[in-house]
């Protein structure tokens, strides 16, 4: 198969890169290695939640925060991608979300603090409208509403934690539960089952009336697990909120996170519908390089390898999750150029003793040139027409600073721009 530019990846970096190419009128093919597990733990687009790993003070203005981070850390992936790539990529994503029928809010100018399922305030940059009423800079008391028999969102836990860390006093946060019609607690059900049911008008209305009955006072807002519709979420949310009669906000749950599914599924469908060819569930590997140019890569599929010949390639892979890197017992190798990216005499060296501190393995990745081309670490590209985005770049660890979304946007946008210029 021949194409202009091939984008490989299943996460936000791949989607932003593909959209960037499409908007520029280029013929891009999106090669989707398979359903990424990150789907199931995704909700908002976080650009920069904390300026470093030791602070609990959130970044108020993500764009200014990233600018400072770039100034302080010239080798950080944000610095490699550049602040302009973050700005332009975010504008592109916001417009795309609108075009795809989402009603998302937020901007690079300000982080919102939204409560998580354990009741912790979390700085978020872009977020669905259905989460916005959770804004912890607003004063109204919060009622966390869970569902009987559904333990993937525990309102009592969220309420107890938030009442201690949110300075509005103990009376301002409480937890209730309502039962759901048709959901017998002796049966297994997941967030996806609930999200489907919420698309039904009668179900929604009944749940709303049960919630209304539990809440006696005015001027509260109601936090519910993020299961308000699987595909028609905008209609589901607004009609449900109207029937509850209080501001309602969604809180992402244990996986599968319906918010992540909604985001990725719709963006992927939208880009397909707007004419981008997509190759499904095909992991890619093996870059064939001659004269400093990648001539083709290969797709693994049933029975045989399919070559993809493109003029340029964007490898927008999210670390281990979609097979960007292969971790043997001692050596982590890259599947395209067969470089040894890291060697560890003992596998424990890849980890920190605590799960809650930065993990060395998360930063393993390709060294890149100042144009995001993979390099052997000497500043020279391994192939002039290959560009990296996402978690496979060395030093890319969004976990502690809460910057997964922004890093994906900035690197995805920049890599696409470079691929067009190649």
């Amino acid at each position: 198969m021949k194409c202009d530019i091939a984008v490989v990846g299943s996460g936000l970096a791949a989607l932003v890169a593909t959209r960037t190419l499409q908007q520029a009128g280029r013929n891009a093919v999106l090669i989707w290695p398979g359903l990424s597990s990150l789907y199931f733990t995704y909700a908002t687009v976080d650009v920069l939640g904390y300026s470093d790993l030791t602070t609990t003070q959130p970044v108020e203005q993500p764009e200014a925060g990233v600018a400072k981070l770039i100034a302080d850390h010239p080798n950080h992936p944000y610095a490699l991608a550049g602040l302009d790539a973050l700005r332009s990529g975010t504008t592109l994503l916001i417009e795309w979300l609108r075009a795809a029928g989402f009603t998302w809010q937020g901007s690079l100018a300000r982080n919102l603090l939204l409560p998580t399922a354990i009741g912790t305030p979390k700085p978020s940059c872009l977020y669905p409208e259905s989460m916005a009423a959770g804004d912890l800079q607003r004063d109204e008391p919060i009622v966390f509403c869970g569902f009987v028999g559904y333990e993937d969102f525990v309102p009592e836990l969220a309420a107890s934690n938030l009442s201690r860390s949110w300075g509005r006093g103990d009376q301002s946060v409480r937890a209730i539960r309502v039962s759901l019609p048709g959901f017998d607690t002796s049966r297994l059900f997941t967030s996806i089952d609930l999200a489907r049911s919420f698309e039904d008008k009668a179900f929604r209305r009944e749940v709303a009336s049960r919630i209304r009955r539990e809440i006696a006072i005015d001027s509260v807002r109601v936090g519910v697990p993020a299961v308000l519709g699987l595909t028609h979420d905008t209609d589901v949310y607004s009609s449900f909120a109207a029937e509850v009669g209080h501001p309602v906000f969604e809180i992402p749950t244990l996986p599968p996170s319906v918010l992540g599914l909604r985001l990725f599924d719709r963006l992927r469908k939208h880009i397909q519908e707007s004419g981008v060819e997509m190759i499904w569930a095909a992991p890619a590997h093996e870059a064939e390089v001659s004269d400093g140019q990648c001539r083709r890569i290969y797709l693994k599929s049933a029975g045989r390898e399919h070559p993809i010949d493109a003029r340029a390639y964007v490898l927008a892979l999210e670390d281990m999750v979609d097979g960007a890197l292969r971790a043997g017992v001692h050596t982590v190798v890259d599947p395209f150029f067969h470089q040894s990216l890291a060697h560890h005499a003992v596998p424990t060296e890849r980890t920190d003793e605590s799960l809650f501190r930065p993990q060395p393995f998360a930063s393993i990745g390709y060294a890149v040139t100042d144009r995001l081309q993979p390099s052997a670490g000497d500043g020279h590209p391994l192939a002039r027409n290959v560009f990296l985005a996402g978690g496979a770049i060395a030093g890319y660890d969004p976990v502690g600073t809460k910057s997964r979304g922004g890093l994906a946007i900035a690197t995805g946008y920049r890599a696409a721009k470079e691929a067009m210029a190649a």
Partner: protein
Amino acid sequence: MPDTTTGVVVIGGGSTGAGVLRDLSMRGIEAVLVEKGDLASGTTGRSHGLLHSGGRYCVNDLAAAIECVEEGRILRRIARTTIEDTGGYFVSVSEEDLAWEPRFVEGCAKAGITCERISVEEARRREPALSQHVRTVFWIPEDGHLDPFYLVMGNVESARRRGAQARTYTEVTGFIRDGNQLTGVLTRDTMTGEETSIGCKAVINATGAWAGFVARLLDVEVKVVPVKGVMVVLSHRVAHATINRCHKPGDGDIIVPALSVAILGTTAVKVPHPEVLPIEWDEVRHMIEEGSLMADGVSTARAMRAYAGVRPLYDLGAEAEGREMSRNFAVIDHEQRDGIAGFTSIVGGKVTTYRLMAERVTDLVARRLGVTTPCTTAEVPLNDRDDELDQLRHRPAQLGVPKPHGGERPLQPLVCECELVRPQDVTPWFEDAAVRTLEDIRRRTRTGMGPCQAAICSYRLAGRLVTDRHQDGPTATRAMAELLETRWRGVRHVFWGSQLRQAQVTTGLHLELFNLDRQLMLQAEPAAAPEAVGARQ
């Protein structure tokens, strides 16, 4: 006056202590068990789970082998639901192994172990996992898997139904004496620091590798040699039956299919203290390499975690070291040996022979107390009442997992998808005062033992701490984090392949989606912190 009184205080909540507690209660002797951690949190819960046919000991340690034969048969009667009758293979892969075979066959005959030589072709037909290196095979039908957690819980629950008590996180700090007679123990709660005293007529020291520390409180010596063993857990069973190397017992020569996983064992390294159990990379690597010699799929299976346990080998004064030392046990009558009336230690031994050890020490103590009721633990099953513990083996059917021949039920809710744990499996334990941490729930229900290593269920369990135990959010969140950290300590040692993907999902969920790292930091900050976050700027 002591805070409470009882007949006998049993120190140690492993299989031996639990067995003693049950034996005492069945002879009508009032008893309290005290354990400084959780039940089955020491040697027992860190064993490899091999129900010994005796084959591993029949050449070097005939007495221990004979005990295994007898006790294995008794356990199949009284503890059916803790045992999986897998049978086992003893395989030879080298010249040295072949030279060992005649001694093995002779040892089996002497110990009364059923042992059948089968052709490699027949063995491979039954067990396709056997590797190409395998040259000869013996079938030992009485090897199996013994679930050490269910065994301890089953013994303790059986004793509790007869009026006995078990206090976890209760450490013995001293003894009460009246001249040469022990009249009680002093204890301290290892979590709250609360001190209590229990008056009693006799004390049984069933602390295994820790027996020397307890005895030292009375200025007497019990020489126990702590010998570390490292195990590796694979994410699936690999083989249908246990596989042993047919050679002089050595490192990495056992594979035990245990419920949903397989356990590779083990090493033998003397350690200075039973709680100093470092897991060395060479041990992990060696076990996987040696395991691969016996079974295909060991090196390609996903290794999920590694853990280390400690054998409580009793030093009989011989020159023997580590595996050379007997796995036999001894009852030490401190009244006779040291002039301390009412104090008895039970040392050495192994999980497979826990019941016999309990019987012997209880015989002595009961006689001293003038109780003539005979031991019945070899006859009365553990689950002699309708008991959820009994249901383990039937769990997939209860869950409505589709069966090939009809009878399909809708799936029931699950707390832990990896290990198929239902809400009703965990609920009673939240009402049990002996259960203090989420690790304790794990030991009793297997919640969190599967491939995701508590990534998902830890949140649901934290929720139950708030709803069922009325703990506050920060306490429950800390408990959730501790469960994840404990699991992580084992995961780190086998960190390659898909383990990295799993870790990425776990950190994506807890640190990104939940913001757990900041929650823990906020909780650790002084009380003034609440205003800082989310306050109007």
